[in-house]
């Protein structure tokens, strides 16, 4: 089983977002970068499948050198090698084109991604890559089992889930509970230092979108407290003041 896992380097989920440069850039000062949580699920399942079926796990990021710590952590968790396409990844089509180009160089049985990036929340790179490679893509995947050359998949749908079957190779966007997040151990961290991280230059530079500027949401007003002994007042306020019921 040859698996490619595509990971993003994104601000930690607890980050308070601030802006700089006249609201045209996110302020990276003091921000801790982590692997996208959905990408972490994809990686964890990839490592489990490798342990179970043999094969290899390659991690791929389209990003600049500040993503290297996140890539090293993926190697520490159990990926065998990594590729970074050296470019600022500001557009999903551009990113997909890079991933598709790498995927065409080797024949992967599975290309695993997160269901969406937690920064730009596009949820599209897996679909575009699937289309570029002429492979089926499925997202969001909650369970993945491999039987021979067939994948058995559970996909979340509104109000439930569906079970799917498809032949490999496939492109999948993953989410919980596909696997438990893996935490790197000391041995993993040591061996990650010597695992190969290949840096390659991008192919093409076409983009279809461009962010002009950012804005932060207005703060919510003060919270109106209602004593528990008068809980019924809440219902009255929701009807007469907030007008939502």
């Amino acid at each position, binding site marked *: 089983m040859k698996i490619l896992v595509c990971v993003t380097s994104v*601000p930690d989920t607890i980050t308070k977002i601030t802006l700089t440069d006249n609201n045209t850039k996110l302020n990276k000062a003091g921000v801790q970068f982590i692997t996208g949580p959905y990408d972490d699920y994809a990686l964890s399942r990839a490592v489990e499948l490798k342990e179970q079926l043999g094969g290899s796990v390659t991690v791929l990021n389209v990003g600049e050198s500040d993503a290297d710590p996140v890539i090293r952590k993926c190697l520490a968790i159990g990926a065998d090698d990594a590729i970074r396409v050296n470019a600022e990844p500001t557009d999903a089509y551009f990113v997909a084109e890079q991933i598709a180009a790498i995927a065409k160089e080797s024949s992967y049985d599975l290309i695993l991604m997160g269901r969406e990036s937690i920064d730009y929340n596009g949820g599209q790179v897996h679909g575009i890559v699937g289309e570029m490679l002429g492979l089926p893509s499925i997202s969001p995947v909650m369970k993945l089992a491999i039987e021979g050359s067939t994948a058995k998949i559970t996909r*979340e749908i*509104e109000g439930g*889930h569906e079970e799917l079957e498809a032949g490999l190779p496939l492109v999948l966007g993953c989410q919980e509970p596909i696997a438990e997040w893996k935490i790197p151990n000391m041995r993993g961290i040591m061996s990650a230092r010597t695992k190969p991280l290949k840096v390659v230059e991008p192919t093409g530079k076409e983009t279809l979108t461009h962010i002009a500027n950012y804005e932060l949401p207005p703060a919510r007003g003060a919270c109106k407290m209602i004593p528990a002994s008068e809980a*019924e007042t809440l219902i009255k306020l929701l009807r007469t003041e*907030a007008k939502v*019921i």
Partner: protein
Amino acid sequence: MSVLIFAELDEGALKKSSLEAIYYGSKVAELTGTSATVLVLGEGNADELAKAGRFGASKVLHASDAQLTEGNAMAYASVVAEAANQEGADVIVLAKSSLADSMAARLAGKLKAGLAANVIELPDVSNGFRVKRSIFTGKAFAFTELTAEKKILAIKKNTITPEETEATATVEAFKPALNNADFAVKVTKVEKATGDILLPEADLVVSAGRGLKGPENWGIVEDLAKALHAATACSKPVSDLDWRPHHEHVGQTGIKISPNLYIACGISGAIQHLAGVNSSKVIVVINKDAEAPFFKSADYGIVGDVFEVLPRLTKAVQAL
């Protein structure tokens, strides 16, 4: 040029979020001086489909091939691409959903279209094509230019308020050419709660966390939800512990919702939980700990025990 709107049916009726998309797409057509056509796949009766007219569309294309009953994202993307081609549509509008999201991703690749997800306002077309979209799960907004000829806008739910008119739309049958390769993924089983209000579509949501102590106590949450005609949701630990199904889990790693009312019961208000609910219009927090961080992001709060407060709220709603 024209605007094509991809609308979804749920149990035969146009989804509320699809009506928002139809209204939004019709407004985009108005702004760009063209017309709006709606594409609907699956079983639906003519009266229901003609309803699209009340939200601004002039025409509905209806494809009801038996092969299109399962929500197959790849086949749907091919059908939408064919309809867009027939209609000469450069802008495709849809509401975010589990089906539309994966359909739109394929479509973006197929048409080489720029896709903006979580769009929350009408575009600015005065100089190019610029949309405002929510990023960082509601923690910021990005004004995004769509520079490609083809554009896909995935609208965030409950952020556009449609206005209805008396207009009607004509309904035409649409017979797409289906391609076997699009059916490479076989659906072997579908499990979907029926009759319940779908959480992502719900206007009102009652949600509960670890403060409920165990799955056996969910009756008080369900009772309040039932009285309000609300959907139920939960925090991540609750679905991790299997107290509630995964499709009820909201937050950073769960479903993102933006209802008119979100009532959080026994949920501490971790930042990852807030990420999924912070665009709710009104937030109510009920927690026995006055220091719970959730109160800082709430509009109304009650410091109290959910086991006492919830039954009283249910009674008060029933008495309305």
